């Protein structure tokens, strides 16, 4: 599983890192968040110009055909630099679902996403269910040759800025929660009401009310069965992205803590001379590197369409959650007061980590999912899967 980067991959990583270092200093991020824009439009356009918005899409869909390793490199850098722009929301979630859907309408939107002109959001969460696969109370009823959507969606990330929303709704007519199908809803459609707010990680989200929104027949991108399949394809890449972002956050928090403890003198010596501080840093490093191994493994399996990928994804999300929390909490602890301020960057890693934990299933949920997928014989998988990672390398 040696993830030796290709020349192109190395160039990609370098160019992202260089761009963010030069144009995304923490001070600039603070200024942005002090304003009223949900994110930096100029940064977004720069992402488009760098080709990043086209990165994960197939060449047949106008994209660059980047694989999981490319996504890992990008998300890691975005996490390291605490980037708040809605790459995950617009490109990975909305874009990923559109790409899975295909068709003219989707192609047009995908083109807009890749050029930077169009923002999307994926509205799945409701009171009572926080996963895209959760049953939903939002209803889609056949009406006048099309659909009529009614319901409420919660914590829709990038929902306020989105030009279009991908909304899960049930076609069942009876009350209660039903299996979700997926509908394309223009942001400005009559009956769409959005109540925006910032989130703790510096992003934006909204509560979304669908008050009898009338949609054409083709607005249903997937029926319930098809949506389950489409989401399964998008999900593991989305998990990879979140995990890699968390990994980048750990890197940022760890590096800052090493630097700070080497420089900060208390009781006559740098903090990093205290054995307890040193060992804590070692434990942070251990957690970070164990987490990195799972993220890399997930990319490796995804790029090979390996059936083990969903299991590794569950493992990675669970582990990244624990590791990310440990590393970012201890980064604050070893800094002391300065890390509790808005003006210093290190505390912000903790807040993003906490939100990542809550997205697409938390640690407990993924541990249970891991057990289910491993079916009680997890670690023997490398022997049973035709020789493990090594047969196909």
């Amino acid at each position, binding site marked *: 599983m040696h993830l030796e980067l290709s020349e192109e991959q190395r160039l990609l990583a370098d160019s992202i890192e260089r761009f963010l270092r030069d144009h995304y200093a923490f001070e600039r991020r603070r200024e942005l968040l002090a304003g009223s824009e949900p994110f930096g439009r100029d940064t977004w356009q720069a992402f488009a110009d760098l080709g990043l918005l086209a990165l994960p899409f197939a060449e047949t869909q106008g994209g660059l055909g980047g694989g999981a390793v490319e996504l890992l490199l990008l998300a890691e850098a975005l996490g390291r630099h605490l980037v708040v722009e809605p790459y995950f929301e617009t490109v990975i979630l909305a874009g990923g679902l559109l790409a899975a859907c295909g068709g003219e309408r989707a192609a047009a939107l995908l083109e807009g996403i890749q050029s930077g002109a169009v923002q999307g959001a994926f509205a799945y969460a409701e009171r009572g269910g926080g996963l895209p696969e*959760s049953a939903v109370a939002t209803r889609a009823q056949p009406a006048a040759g099309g659909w009529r959507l009614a319901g409420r969606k*919660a*914590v829709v990330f990038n929902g306020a800025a989105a030009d279009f929303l991908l909304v899960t709704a049930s076609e069942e007519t009876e009350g209660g929660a039903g299996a979700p199908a997926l509908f394309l809803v223009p942001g400005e459609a009559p009956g769409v009401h959005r109540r925006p707010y*910032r989130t*703790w990680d510096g992003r934006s989200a909204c509560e979304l009310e669908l008050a009898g929104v009338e949609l054409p027949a083709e607005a249903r991108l997937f029926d319930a069965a098809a949506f389950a399949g489409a989401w399964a394809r998008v999900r593991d890449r989305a998990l990879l992205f979140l995990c890699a972002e968390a990994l980048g956050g750990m890197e940022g928090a760890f590096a800052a803590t090493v630097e700070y403890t080497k420089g900060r003198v208390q009781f006559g010596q740098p903090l990093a001379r205290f054995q307890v501080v040193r060992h804590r840093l070692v434990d942070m490093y251990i957690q970070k590197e164990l987490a990195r191994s799972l993220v890399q493994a997930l990319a490796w399996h995804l790029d090979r369409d390996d059936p083990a990928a969903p299991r590794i994804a569950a493992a990675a999300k669970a582990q990244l959650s624990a590791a990310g*929390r440990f590393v970012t909490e201890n980064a604050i602890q070893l800094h*002391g007061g300065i890390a509790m*301020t808005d003006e210093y960057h290190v505390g912000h890693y903790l807040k993003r980590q906490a939100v990542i934990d*809550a*997205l697409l299933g938390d640690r407990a949920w993924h541990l249970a999912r891991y057990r289910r997928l491993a079916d009680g014989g997890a670690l023997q998988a490398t022997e049973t899967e035709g020789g493990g990672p090594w047969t196909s390398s």
Partner: protein
Amino acid sequence: MDYGAFRREVRAFLDEALTPRLKRAGQLQTSVFADFEATMEWHRILYRKGWVAPDWPPEYGGTGWDLIQRHIFQEECKLADAPSLLPMGLQMLGPLLIRYGTEAQKAHYLPRILSGEDVWCQGYSEPGAGSDLASLKTRAVRDGDHYVVDGSKIWTSMAHHANRIFCLVRTANTEKPQAGISFLLVDMATPGITVRPIVGLDGRVEQCEVFFDGVRVPVENRVGAENQGWEVAKYLLAFERGGHHFAADHKKQLRRIARILAAEADPEGRLRGEDPDFCARLAAAEVEALALEYTELRVKGGLAAGASPGALSSLIKVAGCEIGQRLDALALEAAGLWCAPFQPEALSPDWTGTPAAPDHALTAMACYVDNRASTIYGGAAEVQRDIMARHLLGL
């Protein structure tokens, strides 16, 4: 002593005196500090009742309650969602003045702390002196019957609301850094003082940096002898012995979790309170909190019987903070996606907007984030363990 009757008396008073707005301020409190206006309103209500300073000797305005009564009072206040009072005057400076202040200082300052007329802040830490407090550099140079103070203090809680600050300042350079420190009382209105509020990770201001530029402080505002300020300051730590009320905080946290559990589902829509894995972890934390509560009671029972708490006092602080952090992390987990909306304004008891998160989850992230500071301030957990190790090992 009929503690049951006492508990009922406290409860009856709280039922009546705590207005909905004050209770709301207590419910929305996510750190050591509740909404400032509500805090002071509650302070004044307790002052009128005579209950504002249970830990003070009765002759200075205390209640005369024993340690167990004080424990019960704290617990009932927390469980009734009373906002916390500011500790700087009542818990820190007051007892210190009672021990070290001149008669004039006591006569002038103590009544004003009790009434709430004076709001104090604490000028200890400096940018270069955190856990290593003794390395502080803010200088006070004698000039006639004044000290002239230059330097800066940081992590000064509530300095933007306070009208007075008590400070540690350097009055001599000595080999042992502790030996050249004095303790001063300073009026925040003195020319040369500037306050820079520091925005916290939660988007709100509790901490400040305070700059002193040629600030003239009358010599009679010194507490204790010149260069003896370290001894005076250390008394605060000693006074804290037996003054912890973590159990009450933990109960409030557990009640918050119970509210979330009753309302909130896991990502698949199953009630969190029915998830055996989550419940096992919650039970483990509850049991630790129970062990801590009985440790507090052991110490208080022992103090009442004349014993010295020794290392148990530091133990309570270290374990109390860490258990509190675990509970906040569990609350955050239970709140799920509802942890994400960031509306600092919604944490004011006077805000009338529509909150993005349901009420039971409104404070989850703020509590989690704010409480990371509990193992940092007042001596980081690492420093506390160093101190405990000295006690235990005699090395």
